[in-house]
């Protein structure tokens, strides 16, 4: 499903957006960076509570469709700036990770 549609369906606040036409293949919810590197798939939306610079690097290296910061965990402006520079999509959700993951799953697998 196109990223732009996921964003509007889930009511995500865009923080940094490169390509909203990107196809979202699935999702991955985790706060351990090595676990994400090992198991997330290209095109996944990553739901996390981490919000530091290395999140941008992991998303980039794993070619993720984007990152959703759950429960209103807003990253600092330098993180958003780095993501914009690297073309990594970042979004904020006011909902807890469980809700975001559940809604994303239902959306992708109706």
């Amino acid at each position: 499903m196109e990223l732009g549609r996921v964003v509007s369906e889930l009511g995500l606040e865009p923080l940094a957006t490169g390509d909203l036409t990107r196809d979202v293949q699935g999702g991955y919810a985790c706060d351990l960076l090595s676990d994400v590197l090992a198991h997330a798939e290209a095109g996944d939306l990553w739901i996390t509570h981490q919000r530091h610079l290395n999140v941008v690097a992991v998303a980039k290296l794993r070619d993720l469709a984007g990152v959703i910061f759950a429960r209103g965990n807003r990253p600092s402006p330098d993180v958003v700036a780095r993501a914009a520079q690297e073309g990594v999509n970042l979004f904020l959700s006011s909902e807890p990770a469980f809700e975001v993951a559940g809604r994303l799953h239902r959306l992708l697998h109706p």
Partner: protein
Amino acid sequence: MTGPQAPPALRLKRIYEVAPRDLERAGTVSTEVRRELLALGMSPEVVRRASVVCFEGEMNMVLYSEGGRIILLVKEDRVELLFSDRGPGIADVNLASQPGYSTAPDWARELGFGAGLGITNMEENSDLFKIRSRVGKGTVVRATILLGVPFF
């Protein structure tokens, strides 16, 4: 009779310095390595594997070492990543390589590091992998990704 074979031609060599505890800059080497490999037209799978190996190695150097450097070598038949640091060295490499084992301090764990999967991830994504370490001296890791070899 054929003479000794020429070594595979070197396509690219890059050397990156890694500063200890500099989490702000951590991840920049792996991002740069990814860019270089994409520019050389490497397959997405090779780029992904090399990126993961590099990120984990870089993070280990940033979090645990006194700093060092990462060398990227691209040859006709392989991508090599060499990590060498200035210490403190790993007393028991086998133990440190076990999935789930980590000496990460609490502050690093809170940032999502210290899952104890770093070395495992490096090894899993390499075709050849070797760690040499001496306490008080430092650690050298060589990770090789062979091109044109099946990877599962």
